[in-house]
């Protein structure tokens, strides 16, 4: 009985992914353990969604996604704190622009090498950006992080809405994340999305079919950077500060862990993974200082025994089929 009810919910969710997403996250702040967690899950889920487009669907393992998350965060943060732009939309746009330009540049270099080098190169370039931000303290605040980001009210259809209430900020992020999820769905359902999966399954065959796979990979990389950049920009607004660690390799590692826990190559995996990671980190860190040790061990167990992740195992989908 319970099993068949679960089966029916699963079937409905599979057929209506966007509607399920909209419904679930509309009530999520009221069922999450606490409200701040809900916003974090949205933002990190979006970050993981960007990573998942590249790794889960295109088969390219990036260990440097902190770069685009960080570029989004610094882009939006610098626009508000240093350029004193007066519109949140312009600040978000600058963050997205920085992430896209960075993604195109780094993607161009990294895609000159294939296979296993790709992971090392993405990591190396992200670390380069970290050191640049670290040493350019006059602009970025260096080790102290970028401070003094004002949380401006949102101007929409001539009205001005304050985002200072956590719930108001949640629904602001919710609208943007829903848009991003819809865009991702559109990408995956397009012929371009089919080519991405063809590259993941067998890139030589995709070449033989006449696809310019380097161009497709670069586009996938840039889209992925765009989603990561939006997540970073939103997080800069949420925290009103950009810690320099947002560009550090550990941030790249976090998004890898989240995506694999949830299920790489699955539609909801990134959000399931982000929620799992954040709840685990939150609960574990209360009573165990070395909580990343536990996360590391759980992650290893997933790589060994559950490569499809939580959502992939529940729905028998994903990268390890």
């Amino acid at each position, binding site marked *: 009985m319970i099993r068949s009810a679960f089966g029916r919910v699963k079937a409905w969710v599979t057929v209506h992914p966007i509607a399920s997403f909209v419904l679930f996250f509309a009530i999520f702040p009221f069922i999450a353990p606490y409200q701040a967690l809900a916003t974090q899950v949205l933002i990190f889920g979006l970050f993981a969604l960007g990573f998942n487009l590249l790794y889960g669907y295109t088969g390219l393992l990036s260990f440097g996604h902190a770069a685009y998350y960080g570029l989004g965060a610094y882009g939006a943060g610098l626009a508000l704190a240093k350029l004193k732009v007066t519109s949140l939309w312009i600040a978000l746009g600058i963050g997205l622009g920085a992430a896209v330009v960075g993604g195109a540049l780094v993607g161009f270099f990294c895609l000159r090498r294939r296979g296993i080098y790709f992971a090392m190169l993405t990591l190396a370039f992200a670390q380069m950006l970290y*050191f640049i931000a670290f040493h350019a303290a006059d602009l970025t605040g260096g080790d102290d992080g970028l401070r003094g980001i004002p949380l401006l009210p949102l101007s929409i259809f001539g009205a001005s809405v304050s985002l200072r209430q956590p719930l108001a900020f949640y629904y602001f992020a919710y609208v943007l994340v829903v848009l991003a999820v819809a865009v991702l769905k559109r990408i995956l359902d397009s012929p371009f999305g089919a080519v991405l999966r063809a590259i993941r399954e067998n890139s030589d065959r995709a070449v033989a079919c006449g696809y310019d796979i380097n161009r497709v990979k670069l586009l996938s990389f840039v889209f992925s950077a765009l989603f990561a950049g939006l997540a970073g920009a939103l997080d800069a607004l949420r925290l009103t500060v950009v810690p320099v660690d947002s560009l550090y390799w550990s941030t790249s590692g976090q998004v890898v862990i989240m995506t694999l826990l949830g299920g790489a190559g699955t539609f909801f995996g990134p959000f399931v993974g982000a929620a799992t990671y954040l709840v685990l980190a939150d609960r574990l860190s209360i009573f165990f200082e070395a909580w990343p040790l536990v996360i590391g061990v759980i992650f290893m167990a997933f790589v060994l025994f559950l490569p499809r992740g939580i959502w992939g195992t529940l729905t028998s989908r994903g990268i390890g089929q």
Partner: protein
Amino acid sequence: MLDVSLSALTAQVFTGIVLGGILVLMAIGLSLIFGLMTVVNFAHGAFYMLGAYVAFSLLGLTKSFWATLVLAPLVVGTLGFLVERLLIRRLYGRSPDDPLLLTFGLSLAMVEGVKLLWGKIGLTVDPPTQLAAAVDLGFMRFPVYRLFVIAVTAAALLALWLFLEKTNVGLIIRAGSRDALMVRALGVDLNRIWLLVFGIGIGMAGLAGVLAGPMRGVYAEMGVEIIIECFVVVVVGGMGSLPGAIVAGLLMGEIVSLTTFFAPRLAEIVVFVVMAAVLLVRPSGLFGEAGLAE
């Protein structure tokens, strides 16, 4: 005035060789493991860090630097055997991304584990008293310990080269990295060879950690810093190429050391710029063969 800066510059060049030597020890192990097993060992830096910590404790136990120098790499190498046997072996035949992901998790766990066992604050290790002084080379003064590091690095590389070129096991390792299937068809049990190579590579990372401890200090994050530099070395030198690892390792050591001398703020950035330049001009690396494991 010119004299002083010239000798300072020469000292910096020597420091570059020391840094480069450590990188070479690391990158060769990484490259050897990759060449034979197509496993990129993200935890290579974590084993380097562990080598430094194990050396700290062994020094306290044995009171002998020389015993530590031999024992610590053996301890770390043995752990390497266990990791290959219990964890990595399960992933052969899966995507090459999977061992990379697994060892990433392992590295995370090891960094935290080390903090639990040895504390969160970095430790200092003194070089042995016989090597603590600075020696006058005529044109400059240089710490004896650093010359010693250069000598040990060279000896370890020579030993590895003799092992690979002059022994039967070395022959099998070289053949296995060319064509594992054919070697198996000839009746060689490659599982044992993989175990051995993984242990040797990890042991060399441990040795690098032991040597680096007295120069750079012992702290939990030291492994991640060096693994990223090693990735750069391997990209520049060409993965699976041993001469490539040596040339690129020494080159990177010099670049870091000389940039530290002239423009300290750029020292951490310039290695990545060199990497990008190599990618533009020669995407397969200085010594790499295009297409290897791509």
